[in-house]
């Protein structure tokens, strides 16, 4: 029916740059957060329902699998937050030069590690020291 339409340059054509990885990681972390959103609401629903429902959620979250999921969710949150700020900055027309984009990608990774580590530290040890 339609003629072959011209094709934009796509993944197979570009040489890999690590800014590509930060780009796809934004989507990946967003998907993780979309799943995490359901868990947040599940937790609130349990808190609204009462102690027995809440204990069930605590049991799941407290298991090693739950802790792993929570850590992954935290990492995704920190990354999506900082890379999202990077996107908002781009939306204002700033930081779009290649060197700037590479530098900001590095800052996003550093900030993500720091925030994740800090929240993880406070969550695990904060109760005892504070």
């Amino acid at each position, binding site marked *: 029916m339609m003629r072959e339409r011209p094709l934009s340059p796509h993944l197979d054509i570009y040489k890999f740059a690590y800014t590509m990885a930060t780009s796809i990681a934004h989507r990946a972390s967003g998907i993780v957060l979309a799943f995490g*959103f359901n868990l947040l*609401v599940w937790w609130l629903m349990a808190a609204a329902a009462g102690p027995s429902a809440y204990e069930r959620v605590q049991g799941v979250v407290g298991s090693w699998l739950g802790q792993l999921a929570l850590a992954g969710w935290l990492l995704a*949150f920190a990354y999506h937050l900082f890379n999202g700020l990077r996107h908002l900055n781009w939306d204002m027309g700033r930081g779009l030069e290649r060197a700037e984009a590479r530098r900001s990608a590095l800052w996003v990774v550093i900030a993500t590690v720091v925030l994740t580590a800090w929240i993880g530290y406070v969550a695990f040890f904060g109760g005892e020291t504070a």
Partner: protein
Amino acid sequence: MSLQSPLTRVRGRGSAKSGVSHWWVQRVTAVTLVPLTLWFVVKLLGLPSLNIGDVREWVAEGWTPVLLIMLLGAMAWHSALGVQVVLEDYIRLKSLKVAALFTSTIFHVLVAIAGSYAVLRIALTTPITAG
């Protein structure tokens, strides 16, 4: 005046006139979520414990339920828009794509309502403690 030819319009090529709104709402919810999510995490970490009593007391106090419902709404909306784009990009089969978009939209609305209901229920049934 349109720059599209009539033939192009009939074939459904070109703007559906809703792209700007999608883009804009994604940004507005993003900007809203930055302070709200940070507030949520900081508040949660500052609770004496995550036992049901402490959590409910916090959820019910002052502006917390208002901000929590706003957080849930912005999060659901932002998530729905983001998931929509991902589904549109990666599912090639048209029927499956439409089904997935349909399901995602309804599910996001459902979860947002559930979360808001939970917050309200906690806020309206937790007795106010002195101090």
